[in-house]
């Protein structure tokens, strides 16, 4: 299986491990990730305003590259995933935005949301299958109690993201179980960690992140996994004692990679 791969800015700098282990794990699972040529930063957050076109263009370029290559575009970072999926939805369903973006890019053939946007987890669930991953696991994480932290970016808005049930998701728990560990379900796993307030209001982040980790701890988790570098940063810095890891790190470990 071959997929287009969009790493995003953070995976090239502060979250190199997330990127490296994702690539190696994918290779082990027989998946080829072809990096989108000359990709640009997605902007980190989806521009909500109806009248913003320019800020959506970098995402549109990535999507067009994926369409060109005729492959779904896979992301690991939740933020990039959120931006790409929502911009793709705009291009498909909002004629005003789609029209203006296409004019801006002077596209001869308009881009109308043809590309498929997948999160790495969705790829594992829908294209590979968690049962196949369970077969590939050589070092099952037996005995580990792991809590999934979804945050907001993977799930909301539910109608556009269509990632999982936004109020009661199961995909990461299923992933954890496929790796042989026990999944801890706890409250606040789909509530915000504080996000970019980390820059100017640590107290606010502390309140939100600690609520998340306290919940996981009360549920008996020994570690928490996430797909978002900023969530990881906030939970690690402000959340509490429990180790917070990228989900790809677990996958890497369970597949027996070094």
């Amino acid at each position, binding site marked *: 299986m071959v997929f287009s791969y969009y790493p995003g800015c953070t995976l090239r700098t502060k979250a190199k491990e997330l990127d490296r282990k994702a690539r190696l794990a994918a290779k082990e699972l027989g998946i080829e990730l072809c990096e989108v040529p000359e990709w640009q930063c997605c902007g980190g957050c989806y521009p909500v305003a109806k009248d913003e076109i320019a800020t959506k263009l970098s995402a549109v370029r990535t999507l067009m590259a994926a369409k060109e290559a005729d492959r779904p575009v896979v992301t690991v970072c939740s933020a990039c995933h959120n931006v790409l999926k929502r911009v793709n939805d705009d291009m498909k369903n909002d004629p005003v935005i789609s029209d203006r973006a296409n004019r801006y890019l002077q596209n001869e053939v308009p881009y109308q949301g043809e590309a498929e946007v997948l999160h790495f987890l969705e790829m594992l669930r829908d294209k590979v299958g968690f049962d196949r991953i369970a077969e590939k696991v050589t070092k099952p994480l037996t005995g580990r109690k792991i809590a999934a932290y979804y945050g907001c970016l993977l799930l909301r808005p539910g109608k556009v993201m269509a990632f999982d*049930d936004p*109020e*009661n998701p199961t995909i990461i728990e299923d992933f954890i179980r496929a790796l042989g560990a026990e999944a801890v*379900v*706890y*409250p*606040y796993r789909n*509530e915000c960690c504080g996000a970019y307030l980390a820059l100017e209001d640590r107290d606010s982040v502390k309140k939100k992140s600690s609520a998340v980790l306290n*919940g996981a701890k*009360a549920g008996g988790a020994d570690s928490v996994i996430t797909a978002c570098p900023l969530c990881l940063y906030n939970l690690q810095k402000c959340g509490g004692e429990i180790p917070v890891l990228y989900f790809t790190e677990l996958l890497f470990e369970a597949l027996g990679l070094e």
Partner: protein
Amino acid sequence: MQRIGVFVCWCGSNIAATVDVKAVAEALGKEPGVVFFEDYQYMCSEEGQNKIKNAIKDYALTGAVICSCSPRMHENTFRKAAAAAGINSFMVEIANIREQCSWIHKDKVSATEKAIVLGRAAIAKLHLNAPLTAGESPVVKRALVIGGGIAGIQTALDIADAGFEVDIVEKKPTIGGKMSQIDKTFPTLDCAACILTPKMVDVAQSEKIRIFAYSEVEAVKGFVGNFNVSIRKKARYVDEVKCTGCGLCTEKCPQKKVPNDFNLGLDQKRAIYIPFAQAVPKIATIDADYCTMLKTGKCGVCSKVCTAGAIDYKQKDTVLEEQYGAIVVATGFNPIELTKYDEFAYSQSPDVITSLEFERITNAAGPTGGTLLRPSDGTHPHKIVFVQCVGSREDGNGCGKTYCSKICCMYTAKHAMLTREKYPDTEVYVFYIDVRTPGKNFDEFYRRAVEEYGVHYIKGMVGKVSPENGKLMVRASDLIEGKQLLIDADLVVLAAAIEPDKSARPLATMLTASMDTNDFFTEAHPKLRPVESPTAGIFLSGCCQGPKDIPETVAQASACAAKVIGLLNKDKLTCNACVAHPDEMLCNGCSTCEKVCPYGAITYESKEFRMPDRTTRIRRVASVNPAVCQGCGACTVACPSGAMDLHGFSNRQIMAEVDAICK
């Protein structure tokens, strides 16, 4: 060629003051086909009518044009007069020269001109009139009630009381419906079972009522007065005649792990069961999905313990064919599924329950014997949060309902009040958007919950419920105090929106009864005919028509019964004479008219036609049932080949009027 008489009425000075009636009569007298004309002060008077009758006889008139007041006033008067003189009553046309001429114009010249034009149009139309006779159809003097809840029970009892036979079809093994699951009823707090079960017994004992429980309507054919209905009696695997309802089998059955749907899955029943002690009919039923004997052929305990020998593992579904004159829909409601509302953690915690589940938990015959206990650990909850409007009043693009479910405000006040009365140590919070309590003694009831029982009513909505350490952390807004609250509740009760039963949509298709987008049945008129469907002979009772509480449901059920009795009381139905009729030679069998007909009056049949070359061909052509057609004419315009026309308002007649006016 018609022989037409023109009669111009003065209406005292009402017409004569602005319209030169003599000039009108004379002008119209020159129209082709007019052999007689006359004007008179009061055409509608005895004397005036006699003038018409005499003229018809003396001049052998075939039709009459009366220039007078609105046909809405006296069309019937003049039609009767014409019929008395021996011509068909539909050979009368009215030119409205009062309301639509003399009363709105001041200038006598133009008013007279207009009156002449209106008279000409009426004459032009009358030339194309043909005698019409209204058809008649016999009435089968029996009624079918679909649904055995309180609505169906009340309707059936009232119809039976008037002396007509009624059959109730209920898909569950017992009648009683939702009301049998409810603990107490607002605003009087009398116990639901105490007032419902005597009615159920009345139904069972009535000689006029038959109950087809555990049965479903499978097909409906026919029309008002003459419905043929197929009813499927599902196999209970128990002989209804032999079973005494002793209940021994339900105690001995070894299969104990069957979710008890009567208690909404809060406890378990046996594979052979009687839903509740006062069930009617009180007959055991085997749940084929769980019965070991039916699944593997090895068990047979119930058969061994049954002294009446009523168990019959080989029983099959049977289909009955019955005839009815009227059908009452009383299919009721259900709370919506709450899986899409998991911010309230309904599927994540057993302590988040719906209001109907709360009814079962507080019901003395329920899974906890009437003690309020948490489903998760059986402890007594000390803090309960009620959330209103879950899935109601949404914007229509989401998963909820756009309407107000109407009953939630009152039953939540009831739950809160009863909880505080029985367990004063329990704190009760009700989150509301609006408290809607229109109804007799309703607002007083709600105020009592607040003032006497100390229920905390908070204007705001719950945003999230998180199960945490055995508690339910409820995050909510208090809009009046401007605070976000975090309540550590033991139990959360969701007032789920109600929706029509899922069986209603396929039933509506069978009955050709119309529904709204929410699957509620549409009434014939939202104000003036609230218990009838637009489809003749179909009547609506209870929540199948819209959300209702018990008093309203019973009132509607009785109103519905009155309408049914009115129909069954007639030996024959006189049909509307102005009905649609197809020209079978033009009809191409496309079904367009069938689709636009709001009454389901049009069907298609294959008919043999003799062709000019003496061969016969079978063609599919439209056929209008005159007993059902109401004469709106929608089909006549929809028909692409122009085969469909309407008696009394035919294409040619209306065209003739247009021509006369535009001349």
